[in-house]
Protein backbone atom coordinates (compact mmCIF):
# COMPACT_ATOMS: atom_id res chain seq x y z
CA UNK A 1 0.00 0.00 0.00
CA UNK A 2 1.24 3.41 -0.84
CA UNK A 3 -0.31 6.77 -0.26
CA UNK A 4 -0.16 9.41 -2.96
CA UNK A 5 1.86 12.47 -2.22
CA UNK A 6 2.07 15.78 -3.97
CA UNK A 7 5.41 16.41 -5.62
CA UNK A 8 6.11 20.08 -6.10
CA UNK A 9 8.92 22.52 -6.54
CA UNK A 10 6.73 25.44 -5.56
CA UNK A 11 8.18 25.86 -2.09
CA UNK A 12 11.27 27.79 -3.10
CA UNK A 13 11.17 31.09 -1.24
CA UNK A 14 12.33 33.07 -4.26
CA UNK A 15 9.60 31.70 -6.49
CA UNK A 16 6.93 32.34 -3.89
CA UNK A 17 8.05 35.90 -3.37
CA UNK A 18 8.12 36.57 -7.08
CA UNK A 19 4.73 35.05 -7.60
CA UNK A 20 3.19 37.02 -4.73
CA UNK A 21 4.57 40.25 -6.17
CA UNK A 22 3.29 39.66 -9.68
CA UNK A 23 -0.03 38.40 -8.42
CA UNK A 24 -0.68 41.45 -6.27
CA UNK A 25 0.03 43.79 -9.17
CA UNK A 26 -2.32 41.79 -11.37
CA UNK A 27 -5.09 41.84 -8.82
CA UNK A 28 -4.41 45.52 -8.17
CA UNK A 29 -5.20 46.38 -11.79
CA UNK A 30 -8.50 44.61 -11.57
CA UNK A 31 -9.34 46.23 -8.23
CA UNK A 32 -8.58 49.64 -9.70
CA UNK A 33 -10.99 49.02 -12.56
CA UNK A 34 -13.77 47.98 -10.20
CA UNK A 35 -12.98 50.92 -7.90
CA UNK A 36 -13.35 53.40 -10.78
CA UNK A 37 -16.72 51.92 -11.66
CA UNK A 38 -17.85 52.01 -8.03
CA UNK A 39 -16.65 55.59 -7.61
CA UNK A 40 -18.59 56.71 -10.69
CA UNK A 41 -21.72 54.93 -9.55
CA UNK A 42 -21.49 56.40 -6.04
CA UNK A 43 -20.87 59.95 -7.14
CA UNK A 44 -23.48 59.94 -9.87
CA UNK A 45 -26.11 58.37 -7.69
CA UNK A 46 -27.90 61.68 -6.92
CA UNK A 47 -28.46 62.19 -10.65
CA UNK A 48 -29.86 58.72 -11.16
CA UNK A 49 -31.98 59.01 -8.02
CA UNK A 50 -33.62 62.18 -9.32
CA UNK A 51 -34.92 60.86 -12.62
CA UNK A 52 -34.21 57.16 -12.64
CA UNK A 53 -31.74 55.21 -14.74
CA UNK A 54 -34.12 54.62 -17.64
CA UNK A 55 -34.99 58.26 -18.02
CA UNK A 56 -31.31 59.19 -17.75
CA UNK A 57 -30.55 56.93 -20.70
CA UNK A 58 -33.54 57.87 -22.81
CA UNK A 59 -34.01 61.61 -22.35
CA UNK A 60 -31.83 64.33 -23.59
CA UNK A 61 -30.77 67.77 -22.40
CA UNK A 62 -28.67 69.20 -19.64
CA UNK A 63 -30.54 71.61 -17.42
CA UNK A 64 -29.25 71.07 -13.90
CA UNK A 65 -29.83 74.46 -12.34
CA UNK A 66 -33.13 76.09 -11.44
CA UNK A 67 -36.38 74.60 -10.26
CA UNK A 68 -37.03 72.08 -13.01
CA UNK A 69 -33.80 70.28 -13.73
CA UNK A 70 -33.91 67.81 -16.61
CA UNK A 71 -31.03 65.94 -18.08
CA UNK A 72 -30.24 62.76 -19.97
CA UNK A 73 -27.52 61.26 -22.13
CA UNK A 74 -29.54 59.85 -25.04
CA UNK A 75 -28.32 62.42 -27.58
CA UNK A 76 -24.76 62.36 -26.26
CA UNK A 77 -24.62 58.58 -26.47
CA UNK A 78 -26.15 58.66 -29.93
CA UNK A 79 -23.62 61.16 -31.25
CA UNK A 80 -20.75 59.31 -29.54
CA UNK A 81 -21.72 56.20 -31.46
CA UNK A 82 -22.21 58.14 -34.72
CA UNK A 83 -18.78 59.75 -34.49
CA UNK A 84 -17.21 56.40 -33.61
CA UNK A 85 -18.93 54.70 -36.54
CA UNK A 86 -17.81 57.42 -38.97
CA UNK A 87 -14.30 57.04 -37.54
CA UNK A 88 -14.35 53.29 -38.12
CA UNK A 89 -15.76 53.63 -41.65
CA UNK A 90 -13.04 56.15 -42.54
CA UNK A 91 -10.14 54.78 -40.50
CA UNK A 92 -10.40 51.02 -40.88
CA UNK A 93 -9.97 50.77 -44.68
CA UNK A 94 -6.95 53.06 -44.47
CA UNK A 95 -5.50 51.11 -41.55
CA UNK A 96 -6.10 47.69 -43.09
CA UNK A 97 -4.77 48.80 -46.46
CA UNK A 98 -1.65 50.18 -44.82
CA UNK A 99 -1.21 46.99 -42.81
CA UNK A 100 -1.56 44.87 -45.96
CA UNK A 101 1.01 46.97 -47.77
CA UNK A 102 3.44 46.76 -44.87
CA UNK A 103 3.12 43.04 -44.29
CA UNK A 104 2.68 41.81 -47.87
CA UNK A 105 4.26 44.22 -50.31
CA UNK A 106 6.72 46.65 -48.74
CA UNK A 107 10.43 45.87 -49.09
CA UNK A 108 12.05 45.06 -45.76
CA UNK A 109 13.65 48.45 -45.21
CA UNK A 110 10.60 50.48 -46.10
CA UNK A 111 8.61 48.20 -43.80
CA UNK A 112 10.68 49.20 -40.78
CA UNK A 113 10.34 52.89 -41.65
CA UNK A 114 6.58 52.63 -42.10
CA UNK A 115 6.08 50.75 -38.85
CA UNK A 116 7.99 53.44 -36.99
CA UNK A 117 6.02 56.22 -38.68
CA UNK A 118 2.68 54.65 -37.84
CA UNK A 119 3.76 54.12 -34.25
CA UNK A 120 4.76 57.78 -34.07
CA UNK A 121 1.31 58.74 -35.27
CA UNK A 122 0.00 56.94 -32.19
CA UNK A 123 1.97 59.13 -29.79
CA UNK A 124 0.81 62.47 -31.19
CA UNK A 125 -1.25 64.01 -28.34
CA UNK A 126 -4.93 64.19 -29.15
CA UNK A 127 -5.06 67.90 -28.47
CA UNK A 128 -2.61 68.35 -31.35
CA UNK A 129 -4.90 66.27 -33.54
CA UNK A 130 -7.77 68.47 -32.40
CA UNK A 131 -6.01 71.69 -33.31
CA UNK A 132 -4.84 70.29 -36.63
CA UNK A 133 -8.38 69.09 -37.27
CA UNK A 134 -9.82 72.50 -36.53
CA UNK A 135 -7.37 74.59 -38.54
CA UNK A 136 -6.39 72.20 -41.36
CA UNK A 137 -8.78 69.31 -41.78
CA UNK A 138 -12.06 71.12 -41.25
CA UNK A 139 -11.60 73.92 -43.82
CA UNK A 140 -10.54 71.33 -46.38
CA UNK A 141 -13.30 68.87 -45.58
CA UNK A 142 -16.21 71.31 -45.64
CA UNK A 143 -16.19 71.35 -49.43
CA UNK A 144 -16.32 67.57 -49.57
CA UNK A 145 -19.18 67.53 -47.05
CA UNK A 146 -21.08 70.00 -49.22
CA UNK A 147 -20.41 67.86 -52.28
CA UNK A 148 -21.83 64.78 -50.50
CA UNK A 149 -24.92 66.67 -49.37
CA UNK A 150 -25.57 68.04 -52.85
CA UNK A 151 -25.08 64.84 -54.81
CA UNK A 152 -25.96 62.08 -52.37
CA UNK A 153 -28.76 63.72 -50.38
CA UNK A 154 -31.12 60.88 -51.28
CA UNK A 155 -29.21 58.88 -48.65
CA UNK A 156 -30.65 60.20 -45.35
CA UNK A 157 -27.30 60.55 -43.55
CA UNK A 158 -26.00 62.82 -46.31
CA UNK A 159 -29.01 65.16 -46.35
CA UNK A 160 -28.85 68.47 -44.47
CA UNK A 161 -31.26 71.00 -43.02
CA UNK A 162 -28.81 73.82 -42.58
CA UNK A 163 -25.96 74.93 -44.75
CA UNK A 164 -23.35 75.14 -42.00
CA UNK A 165 -20.98 72.27 -42.65
CA UNK A 166 -18.33 73.01 -40.06
CA UNK A 167 -18.28 71.57 -36.52
CA UNK A 168 -20.18 68.48 -37.64
CA UNK A 169 -20.16 64.91 -36.41
CA UNK A 170 -18.82 63.95 -39.83
CA UNK A 171 -15.71 66.10 -39.49
CA UNK A 172 -15.15 64.93 -35.91
CA UNK A 173 -15.59 61.35 -37.11
CA UNK A 174 -13.05 61.72 -39.91
CA UNK A 175 -10.57 63.23 -37.47
CA UNK A 176 -11.06 60.44 -34.95
CA UNK A 177 -10.81 57.98 -37.85
CA UNK A 178 -7.32 59.24 -38.57
CA UNK A 179 -6.51 58.92 -34.88
CA UNK A 180 -7.50 55.23 -34.70
CA UNK A 181 -5.42 54.26 -37.74
CA UNK A 182 -2.28 53.37 -35.72
CA UNK A 183 -3.96 50.96 -33.30
CA UNK A 184 -6.04 49.22 -35.97
CA UNK A 185 -3.06 49.11 -38.32
CA UNK A 186 -0.66 47.56 -35.83
CA UNK A 187 -3.12 44.86 -34.74
CA UNK A 188 -4.00 44.07 -38.38
CA UNK A 189 -0.33 43.94 -39.38
CA UNK A 190 0.42 41.55 -36.54
CA UNK A 191 -2.40 39.25 -37.61
CA UNK A 192 -1.49 39.33 -41.32
CA UNK A 193 2.08 38.40 -40.52
CA UNK A 194 0.84 35.34 -38.61
CA UNK A 195 -0.89 33.84 -41.66
CA UNK A 196 0.86 30.47 -42.09
CA UNK A 197 3.74 30.39 -44.57
CA UNK A 198 2.84 26.82 -45.56
CA UNK A 199 -0.58 27.84 -46.83
CA UNK A 200 0.79 30.94 -48.55
CA UNK A 201 3.37 28.85 -50.41
CA UNK A 202 0.76 26.18 -51.13
CA UNK A 203 -1.36 28.76 -52.89
CA UNK A 204 1.60 30.27 -54.76
CA UNK A 205 2.69 26.82 -55.92
CA UNK A 206 -0.78 26.33 -57.41
CA UNK A 207 -0.26 29.38 -59.59
CA UNK A 208 -1.95 31.95 -57.36
CA UNK A 209 -1.03 35.61 -57.73
CA UNK A 210 -0.15 37.66 -54.68
CA UNK A 211 -3.63 39.18 -54.65
CA UNK A 212 -5.14 35.69 -54.69
CA UNK A 213 -2.93 34.60 -51.81
CA UNK A 214 -4.18 37.57 -49.80
CA UNK A 215 -7.79 36.86 -50.69
CA UNK A 216 -7.78 33.11 -50.16
CA UNK A 217 -5.17 32.55 -47.43
CA UNK A 218 -4.39 35.75 -45.52
CA UNK A 219 -7.91 37.20 -45.27
CA UNK A 220 -9.73 34.01 -44.19
CA UNK A 221 -7.04 33.58 -41.55
CA UNK A 222 -7.24 37.19 -40.37
CA UNK A 223 -10.99 37.74 -40.49
CA UNK A 224 -11.72 37.36 -36.81
CA UNK A 225 -8.64 39.23 -35.70
CA UNK A 226 -9.62 42.07 -37.97
CA UNK A 227 -13.07 42.19 -36.42
CA UNK A 228 -11.33 42.48 -33.07
CA UNK A 229 -9.06 45.27 -34.26
CA UNK A 230 -12.06 47.16 -35.60
CA UNK A 231 -13.72 46.91 -32.19
CA UNK A 232 -10.53 48.12 -30.52
CA UNK A 233 -10.61 51.11 -32.82
CA UNK A 234 -14.28 51.62 -32.02
CA UNK A 235 -13.47 51.59 -28.31
CA UNK A 236 -10.80 54.24 -28.79
CA UNK A 237 -13.09 56.33 -30.95
CA UNK A 238 -15.87 56.24 -28.34
CA UNK A 239 -13.56 57.55 -25.65
CA UNK A 240 -11.86 60.25 -27.71
CA UNK A 241 -12.37 63.54 -25.88
CA UNK A 242 -10.27 66.57 -26.64
CA UNK A 243 -10.17 66.33 -30.41
CA UNK A 244 -13.95 65.90 -30.57
CA UNK A 245 -14.50 68.72 -28.06
CA UNK A 246 -12.48 71.08 -30.25
CA UNK A 247 -14.46 70.23 -33.39
CA UNK A 248 -18.13 69.76 -32.50
CA UNK A 249 -20.54 72.33 -31.20
CA UNK A 250 -22.67 70.36 -28.76
CA UNK A 251 -26.25 69.76 -29.73
CA UNK A 252 -28.97 67.76 -28.03
CA UNK A 253 -30.89 67.00 -31.17
CA UNK A 254 -30.84 63.42 -32.35
CA UNK A 255 -30.88 63.56 -36.13
CA UNK A 256 -29.43 61.57 -38.99
CA UNK A 257 -27.79 64.65 -40.54
CA UNK A 258 -24.15 64.02 -39.80
CA UNK A 259 -22.84 66.57 -42.30
CA UNK A 260 -24.30 69.68 -40.71
CA UNK A 261 -23.20 71.53 -37.62
CA UNK A 262 -24.10 69.72 -34.44
CA UNK A 263 -23.26 66.46 -32.79
CA UNK A 264 -21.59 65.86 -29.49
CA UNK A 265 -20.09 63.01 -27.56
CA UNK A 266 -20.20 61.97 -23.94
CA UNK A 267 -16.47 62.40 -23.46
CA UNK A 268 -16.30 65.78 -25.17
CA UNK A 269 -19.38 67.02 -23.36
CA UNK A 270 -17.96 66.12 -19.96
CA UNK A 271 -14.77 67.98 -20.81
CA UNK A 272 -16.68 71.04 -21.99
CA UNK A 273 -19.17 71.24 -19.12
CA UNK A 274 -17.14 70.07 -16.17
CA UNK A 275 -17.52 72.39 -13.19
CA UNK A 276 -20.71 73.99 -14.47
CA UNK A 277 -24.24 73.10 -13.44
CA UNK A 278 -23.79 72.85 -9.70
CA UNK A 279 -23.80 69.69 -7.60
CA UNK A 280 -26.50 68.01 -9.58
CA UNK A 281 -24.64 68.89 -12.77
CA UNK A 282 -21.49 67.17 -11.52
CA UNK A 283 -23.48 64.10 -10.58
CA UNK A 284 -25.09 64.06 -14.01
CA UNK A 285 -21.73 64.39 -15.75
CA UNK A 286 -20.33 61.55 -13.64
CA UNK A 287 -23.38 59.52 -14.60
CA UNK A 288 -22.66 60.21 -18.24
CA UNK A 289 -19.10 59.13 -17.54
CA UNK A 290 -20.35 55.89 -16.05
CA UNK A 291 -22.39 55.18 -19.17
CA UNK A 292 -19.33 55.77 -21.34
CA UNK A 293 -17.15 53.67 -19.02
CA UNK A 294 -19.46 50.67 -19.19
CA UNK A 295 -20.02 51.06 -22.92
CA UNK A 296 -16.31 51.20 -23.86
CA UNK A 297 -15.52 48.43 -21.40
CA UNK A 298 -18.00 46.15 -23.10
CA UNK A 299 -16.72 47.06 -26.58
CA UNK A 300 -13.08 46.50 -25.62
CA UNK A 301 -13.87 43.28 -23.80
CA UNK A 302 -15.62 42.04 -26.92
CA UNK A 303 -12.60 43.07 -28.97
CA UNK A 304 -10.08 41.25 -26.81
CA UNK A 305 -12.20 38.10 -26.73
CA UNK A 306 -12.39 38.11 -30.53
CA UNK A 307 -8.69 38.84 -31.02
CA UNK A 308 -7.59 36.15 -28.58
CA UNK A 309 -9.83 33.56 -30.10
CA UNK A 310 -8.69 34.34 -33.62
CA UNK A 311 -5.02 33.97 -32.79
CA UNK A 312 -5.25 31.13 -30.30
CA UNK A 313 -7.73 28.57 -31.52
CA UNK A 314 -8.30 29.25 -35.17
CA UNK A 315 -8.61 25.62 -36.13
CA UNK A 316 -11.08 24.77 -33.39
Amino acid at each position, binding site marked *: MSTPRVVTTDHLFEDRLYRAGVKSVGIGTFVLLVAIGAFLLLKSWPAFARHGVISFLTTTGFTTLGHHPSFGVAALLYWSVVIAVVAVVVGVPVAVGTALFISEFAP*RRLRAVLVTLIDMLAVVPSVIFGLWGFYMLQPNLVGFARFLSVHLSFIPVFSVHSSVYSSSAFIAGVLVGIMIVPIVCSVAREIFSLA*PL*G*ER*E*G*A*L*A*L*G*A*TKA*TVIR*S*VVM*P*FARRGLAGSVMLGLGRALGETVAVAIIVSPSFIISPHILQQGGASIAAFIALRFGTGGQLGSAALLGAGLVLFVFTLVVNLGASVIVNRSVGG*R*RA
Partner: protein
Amino acid sequence: MRRESGAAPAALEEPAPVPAPAPLRTVTTASGLVADGVSAWFSGRLVIESVSLEMEASKVTALIGPSGCGKSTFLRILNRMHEVTPGAELAGRVLLDGEDIYGPEMRPTETRRRIAMVFQKPNPFPAMTVEDNVLSGLKFSGKRPRGKEKDDLVEEMLTRAGLFSEVKARLKTLGGELSGGQQQRLCIARALAVRPSVLLMDEPCSALDPSSTRRIEETMREIAEEVTVVVVTHNMQQAQRVSDYCALFLAGENAPGRIVEKGSTKDIFENPKDERTSDYVHGRFG
Protein backbone atom coordinates in the same frame (compact mmCIF):
# COMPACT_ATOMS: atom_id res chain seq x y z
CA MET B 1 21.96 11.10 -66.80
CA ARG B 2 21.14 8.94 -69.78
CA ARG B 3 21.96 11.06 -72.76
CA GLU B 4 20.35 8.85 -75.40
CA SER B 5 16.87 9.28 -73.96
CA GLY B 6 17.01 13.05 -73.76
CA ALA B 7 15.49 13.58 -77.19
CA ALA B 8 12.62 11.13 -76.76
CA PRO B 9 10.55 12.46 -73.89
CA ALA B 10 7.85 9.79 -73.93
CA ALA B 11 10.10 6.74 -74.12
CA LEU B 12 8.37 4.04 -72.11
CA GLU B 13 10.49 1.03 -72.95
CA GLU B 14 10.90 0.08 -69.30
CA PRO B 15 8.00 -1.70 -67.59
CA ALA B 16 6.52 0.21 -64.68
CA PRO B 17 7.80 -1.44 -61.48
CA VAL B 18 4.39 -1.26 -59.77
CA PRO B 19 1.41 -2.09 -61.98
CA ALA B 20 -1.35 0.49 -61.83
CA PRO B 21 -4.36 -1.05 -60.05
CA ALA B 22 -7.01 0.69 -62.10
CA PRO B 23 -6.93 2.24 -65.53
CA LEU B 24 -6.62 5.98 -65.16
CA ARG B 25 -7.48 8.51 -67.78
CA THR B 26 -4.40 9.93 -69.37
CA VAL B 27 -5.07 13.63 -69.29
CA THR B 28 -1.71 15.26 -69.00
CA THR B 29 1.43 14.92 -71.00
CA ALA B 30 4.48 14.55 -68.87
CA SER B 31 7.28 16.89 -69.76
CA GLY B 32 11.00 16.56 -69.38
CA LEU B 33 12.79 19.04 -67.17
CA VAL B 34 16.42 20.03 -67.54
CA ALA B 35 18.44 22.05 -65.06
CA ASP B 36 21.46 23.62 -66.70
CA GLY B 37 24.24 25.08 -64.57
CA VAL B 38 21.99 26.13 -61.71
CA SER B 39 23.54 28.01 -58.78
CA ALA B 40 21.66 29.62 -55.90
CA TRP B 41 22.35 32.18 -53.23
CA PHE B 42 20.57 33.26 -50.06
CA SER B 43 21.46 36.81 -49.01
CA GLY B 44 24.70 36.58 -50.94
CA ARG B 45 25.72 33.14 -49.60
CA LEU B 46 26.22 30.49 -52.29
CA VAL B 47 24.22 27.36 -51.38
CA ILE B 48 24.29 25.33 -54.60
CA GLU B 49 26.81 25.61 -57.36
CA SER B 50 26.39 24.78 -61.05
CA VAL B 51 24.04 21.85 -60.76
CA SER B 52 22.98 20.28 -64.04
CA LEU B 53 20.43 17.49 -64.11
CA GLU B 54 18.11 16.01 -66.65
CA MET B 55 14.77 14.82 -65.28
CA GLU B 56 13.30 12.54 -67.86
CA ALA B 57 9.64 12.74 -68.77
CA SER B 58 7.33 10.13 -67.25
CA LYS B 59 9.98 8.98 -64.81
CA VAL B 60 10.51 9.44 -61.09
CA THR B 61 13.76 11.17 -60.22
CA ALA B 62 14.85 11.15 -56.59
CA LEU B 63 17.13 13.81 -55.12
CA ILE B 64 18.99 12.34 -52.18
CA GLY B 65 21.64 13.59 -49.80
CA PRO B 66 22.15 14.76 -46.23
CA SER B 67 20.35 17.76 -44.72
CA GLY B 68 21.52 21.19 -45.79
CA CYS B 69 23.04 20.19 -49.10
CA GLY B 70 20.62 22.18 -51.23
CA LYS B 71 18.14 19.54 -52.44
CA SER B 72 15.06 21.49 -51.39
CA THR B 73 16.51 24.73 -52.70
CA PHE B 74 17.19 23.04 -56.02
CA LEU B 75 13.64 21.66 -56.09
CA ARG B 76 12.15 25.10 -55.42
CA ILE B 77 14.21 26.52 -58.28
CA LEU B 78 12.50 24.06 -60.61
CA ASN B 79 9.12 25.80 -60.30
CA ARG B 80 10.12 29.34 -59.40
CA MET B 81 9.30 29.02 -55.71
CA HIS B 82 12.90 29.95 -54.90
CA GLU B 83 12.25 33.61 -55.66
CA VAL B 84 9.46 33.75 -53.06
CA THR B 85 12.08 33.66 -50.29
CA PRO B 86 13.45 37.14 -49.51
CA GLY B 87 17.10 37.49 -50.43
CA ALA B 88 17.12 34.52 -52.81
CA GLU B 89 19.08 34.72 -56.08
CA LEU B 90 20.03 32.26 -58.76
CA ALA B 91 21.97 31.65 -61.96
CA GLY B 92 21.53 29.13 -64.75
CA ARG B 93 18.58 27.84 -66.75
CA VAL B 94 15.71 25.43 -66.17
CA LEU B 95 14.21 24.05 -69.37
CA LEU B 96 10.69 22.67 -69.49
CA ASP B 97 10.30 20.91 -72.84
CA GLY B 98 13.22 22.96 -74.04
CA GLU B 99 11.88 26.33 -72.90
CA ASP B 100 13.61 28.28 -70.13
CA ILE B 101 11.11 28.86 -67.30
CA TYR B 102 13.19 31.87 -66.27
CA GLY B 103 12.89 33.39 -69.72
CA PRO B 104 11.74 37.00 -69.88
CA GLU B 105 8.28 36.18 -71.28
CA MET B 106 7.53 33.42 -68.76
CA ARG B 107 5.03 34.17 -66.01
CA PRO B 108 5.80 32.52 -62.67
CA THR B 109 2.10 31.79 -62.03
CA GLU B 110 1.81 29.90 -65.33
CA THR B 111 5.06 28.04 -64.69
CA ARG B 112 3.91 26.91 -61.26
CA ARG B 113 0.71 25.56 -62.75
CA ARG B 114 2.70 23.45 -65.18
CA ILE B 115 5.23 22.38 -62.55
CA ALA B 116 3.20 21.67 -59.42
CA MET B 117 4.60 21.13 -55.94
CA VAL B 118 3.84 19.13 -52.81
CA PHE B 119 5.51 20.34 -49.63
CA GLN B 120 7.14 18.59 -46.72
CA LYS B 121 4.48 19.66 -44.27
CA PRO B 122 0.92 19.01 -45.46
CA ASN B 123 -0.61 22.43 -46.17
CA PRO B 124 -4.23 22.07 -47.25
CA PHE B 125 -6.33 25.21 -46.88
CA PRO B 126 -7.85 24.50 -43.46
CA ALA B 127 -10.95 26.64 -43.94
CA MET B 128 -11.85 25.08 -47.31
CA THR B 129 -13.71 21.81 -47.72
CA VAL B 130 -11.97 18.73 -49.11
CA GLU B 131 -13.68 19.37 -52.43
CA ASP B 132 -12.76 23.06 -52.53
CA ASN B 133 -9.18 22.18 -51.70
CA VAL B 134 -9.02 19.94 -54.76
CA LEU B 135 -10.52 22.68 -56.91
CA SER B 136 -8.52 25.54 -55.37
CA GLY B 137 -5.80 25.63 -58.02
CA LEU B 138 -8.41 25.89 -60.77
CA LYS B 139 -10.21 28.60 -58.88
CA PHE B 140 -6.98 30.58 -58.58
CA SER B 141 -6.70 30.57 -62.37
CA GLY B 142 -10.30 31.67 -62.79
CA LYS B 143 -11.84 28.32 -63.71
CA ARG B 144 -14.88 27.08 -61.81
CA PRO B 145 -16.06 23.69 -62.97
CA ARG B 146 -19.71 23.02 -62.07
CA GLY B 147 -22.11 20.13 -61.67
CA LYS B 148 -21.07 16.77 -62.99
CA GLU B 149 -17.87 18.09 -64.49
CA LYS B 150 -16.82 19.25 -61.04
CA ASP B 151 -17.82 16.02 -59.30
CA ASP B 152 -15.98 13.94 -61.87
CA LEU B 153 -12.87 16.04 -61.58
CA VAL B 154 -12.86 15.86 -57.78
CA GLU B 155 -13.35 12.10 -57.87
CA GLU B 156 -10.67 11.58 -60.49
CA MET B 157 -8.06 13.65 -58.67
CA LEU B 158 -8.78 12.15 -55.26
CA THR B 159 -8.64 8.68 -56.83
CA ARG B 160 -5.28 9.41 -58.44
CA ALA B 161 -3.98 10.63 -55.10
CA GLY B 162 -5.25 7.42 -53.48
CA LEU B 163 -7.63 9.26 -51.18
CA PHE B 164 -11.09 9.00 -52.73
CA SER B 165 -12.32 5.85 -50.97
CA GLU B 166 -11.42 7.35 -47.60
CA VAL B 167 -13.08 10.73 -48.04
CA LYS B 168 -15.90 10.19 -50.53
CA ALA B 169 -18.45 10.57 -47.75
CA ARG B 170 -16.66 13.63 -46.35
CA LEU B 171 -16.14 15.86 -49.36
CA LYS B 172 -17.81 18.74 -47.53
CA THR B 173 -15.75 18.53 -44.34
CA LEU B 174 -12.90 20.95 -43.86
CA GLY B 175 -9.46 20.08 -45.18
CA GLY B 176 -7.96 20.76 -41.77
CA GLU B 177 -9.99 17.96 -40.21
CA LEU B 178 -8.30 15.11 -42.10
CA SER B 179 -5.39 13.13 -40.66
CA GLY B 180 -1.84 14.11 -41.59
CA GLY B 181 -1.47 11.38 -44.21
CA GLN B 182 -4.84 12.22 -45.72
CA GLN B 183 -3.98 15.91 -45.77
CA GLN B 184 -0.81 15.17 -47.71
CA ARG B 185 -2.71 13.10 -50.27
CA LEU B 186 -5.26 15.91 -50.49
CA CYS B 187 -2.37 18.22 -51.35
CA ILE B 188 -1.30 15.79 -54.06
CA ALA B 189 -4.85 15.73 -55.45
CA ARG B 190 -4.92 19.52 -55.35
CA ALA B 191 -1.62 19.70 -57.22
CA LEU B 192 -2.74 17.17 -59.84
CA ALA B 193 -6.02 19.02 -60.43
CA VAL B 194 -4.27 21.84 -62.28
CA ARG B 195 -3.03 19.15 -64.71
CA PRO B 196 0.68 19.80 -64.37
CA SER B 197 3.30 18.14 -66.55
CA VAL B 198 5.74 17.87 -63.66
CA LEU B 199 5.12 17.23 -59.97
CA LEU B 200 7.79 18.24 -57.46
CA MET B 201 7.64 16.63 -54.02
CA ASP B 202 9.74 17.90 -51.13
CA GLU B 203 10.11 15.07 -48.61
CA PRO B 204 6.39 14.39 -48.91
CA CYS B 205 6.40 11.54 -46.39
CA SER B 206 8.74 12.83 -43.70
CA ALA B 207 5.87 13.78 -41.38
CA LEU B 208 3.80 10.65 -42.04
CA ASP B 209 3.37 7.17 -40.60
CA PRO B 210 4.53 4.08 -42.55
CA SER B 211 1.14 3.16 -44.00
CA SER B 212 0.46 6.67 -45.29
CA THR B 213 3.99 6.70 -46.66
CA ARG B 214 3.39 3.47 -48.55
CA ARG B 215 0.14 4.82 -49.93
CA ILE B 216 1.88 7.95 -51.23
CA GLU B 217 4.70 5.92 -52.74
CA GLU B 218 2.12 3.88 -54.63
CA THR B 219 0.55 7.11 -55.80
CA MET B 220 3.90 8.36 -57.08
CA ARG B 221 4.36 5.22 -59.14
CA GLU B 222 0.84 5.42 -60.49
CA ILE B 223 0.96 9.02 -61.60
CA ALA B 224 4.47 8.88 -63.03
CA GLU B 225 3.19 7.76 -66.41
CA GLU B 226 1.34 11.03 -66.86
CA VAL B 227 3.38 13.38 -64.74
CA THR B 228 7.12 13.58 -64.41
CA VAL B 229 7.91 13.27 -60.70
CA VAL B 230 10.90 14.77 -58.91
CA VAL B 231 11.07 13.84 -55.24
CA VAL B 232 13.42 14.92 -52.47
CA THR B 233 13.85 12.23 -49.87
CA HIS B 234 16.03 11.33 -46.91
CA ASN B 235 14.80 7.80 -46.97
CA MET B 236 17.09 5.54 -48.98
CA GLN B 237 14.57 2.72 -49.11
CA GLN B 238 12.01 5.13 -50.46
CA ALA B 239 14.38 6.34 -53.15
CA GLN B 240 15.00 2.73 -54.13
CA ARG B 241 11.32 1.83 -54.13
CA VAL B 242 9.93 4.74 -56.10
CA SER B 243 12.59 6.26 -58.32
CA ASP B 244 13.93 5.44 -61.77
CA TYR B 245 16.82 7.84 -61.43
CA CYS B 246 18.72 9.27 -58.52
CA ALA B 247 20.96 12.25 -57.99
CA LEU B 248 23.10 12.52 -54.88
CA PHE B 249 23.71 16.01 -53.51
CA LEU B 250 26.55 16.72 -51.10
CA ALA B 251 27.85 19.91 -49.56
CA GLY B 252 31.22 20.28 -47.92
CA GLU B 253 31.88 22.34 -44.84
CA ASN B 254 31.41 25.97 -45.91
CA ALA B 255 31.11 24.74 -49.49
CA PRO B 256 27.93 24.88 -51.58
CA GLY B 257 25.93 21.79 -52.52
CA ARG B 258 26.73 19.95 -55.74
CA ILE B 259 25.66 16.76 -57.43
CA VAL B 260 28.21 14.07 -56.67
CA GLU B 261 26.69 11.35 -58.78
CA LYS B 262 23.60 10.82 -60.89
CA GLY B 263 22.27 7.88 -62.80
CA SER B 264 19.74 5.10 -62.71
CA THR B 265 18.60 4.17 -59.23
CA LYS B 266 19.91 0.65 -59.78
CA ASP B 267 23.39 1.93 -60.58
CA ILE B 268 23.45 4.41 -57.72
CA PHE B 269 22.55 1.77 -55.16
CA GLU B 270 24.24 -1.32 -56.56
CA ASN B 271 27.12 0.00 -58.56
CA PRO B 272 28.07 3.51 -57.47
CA LYS B 273 31.07 5.04 -59.17
CA ASP B 274 31.93 7.51 -56.41
CA GLU B 275 33.07 6.28 -53.03
CA ARG B 276 31.00 8.97 -51.30
CA THR B 277 27.86 7.67 -53.01
CA SER B 278 28.56 4.20 -51.78
CA ASP B 279 29.15 5.50 -48.25
CA TYR B 280 26.00 7.58 -48.28
CA VAL B 281 23.57 5.03 -49.69
CA HIS B 282 24.89 2.43 -47.28
CA GLY B 283 24.36 4.72 -44.34
CA ARG B 284 28.00 5.30 -43.47
CA PHE B 285 27.46 9.05 -43.13
CA GLY B 286 24.73 11.67 -43.39
